[in-house]
């Protein structure tokens, strides 16, 4: 067998519940004026990243599967993010 044991369906339901809660929080954040400005942006990005990570790690089994897969995916992801950040910065910051 190529990969380690899968999580159980119970685990999947739990993750889904967490995802639902985070989504609710995401919708709530812009309503709370105390978070306006930079905190809101950071919060939303953080919450989104949490959801992203949860789906990738558990639903896509990346936590349990071969490290090769994780590396292939992360190279794409963490390659794309800085490149496009720099692209956008050239239009605005410098």
């Amino acid at each position, binding site marked *: 067998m190529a990969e380690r044991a899968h999580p159980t369906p119970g685990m*999947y339901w739990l993750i889904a519940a967490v995802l639902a809660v985070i*989504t609710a929080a995401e919708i709530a954040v812009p309503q709370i004026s105390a978070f306006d400005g930079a905190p809101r942006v950071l919060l939303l990005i953080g919450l989104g990243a949490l959801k992203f990570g949860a789906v990738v790690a558990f639903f896509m089994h990346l936590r349990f599967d071969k490290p090769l897969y994780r590396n292939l995916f992360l190279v794409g992801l963490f390659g794309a*993010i800085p490149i*496009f950040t720099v692209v956008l910065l050239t*239009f605005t910051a410098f």
Partner: protein
Amino acid sequence: MAGAPLAEHAPAAGHDEGHHDVRPVRKTAMWVFLGSECVFFGAMISTFLLYRSNTNGGIGSEIFDIPFTSASSFVLLMSSLTMVLAHGAYYGGDLRQARVWLAATALLGTTFLAGQIFEFSEFIHQGLTLTSSPFGSAFYMLTGFHGAHVAVGVLLLGSMFLLSLGGRLYDDRGLNVELVGLYWHFVDIVWIVIFTVVYLLQQP
């Protein structure tokens, strides 16, 4: 003899007579493809960010209906759950249950698409089109390409479902379902990003 250094362990794969375990082979390719898709969507998301306020004097992000989009985002998020349950069922050998979850996933995906079609027609009605501003172009391209990915996923899920009726999916321990699942979850996480970046962050 110095000329023949021997190290006796082989790399993980590739043992006997060309009968490779297709599992890692195909999953490797799928993950490479998903890595590549990150760049694909990254380019569109950056375009959107660049043009997020380039409304050419017309409609901008104030048009978004956050409650509605939140609902459809939630639908897509939950389809990831049904997808992973389908795969789990296949893996555990419960073909019947797996079929149910597959159908559920396809259904949720279709619901999401329907929501998107509704949203698009609503926006176009209000005057935000592909040709109204760079903002419009970028918005429709990004969400449209995502929608196309969902549509392809629904098509794949439908084929899986039909094949599973003939029991043809079982012998590889649900590898095909797993691969389609990876694709489906990826489409979901892209939407997680889009929902944050395009909808939530653009709120006034």
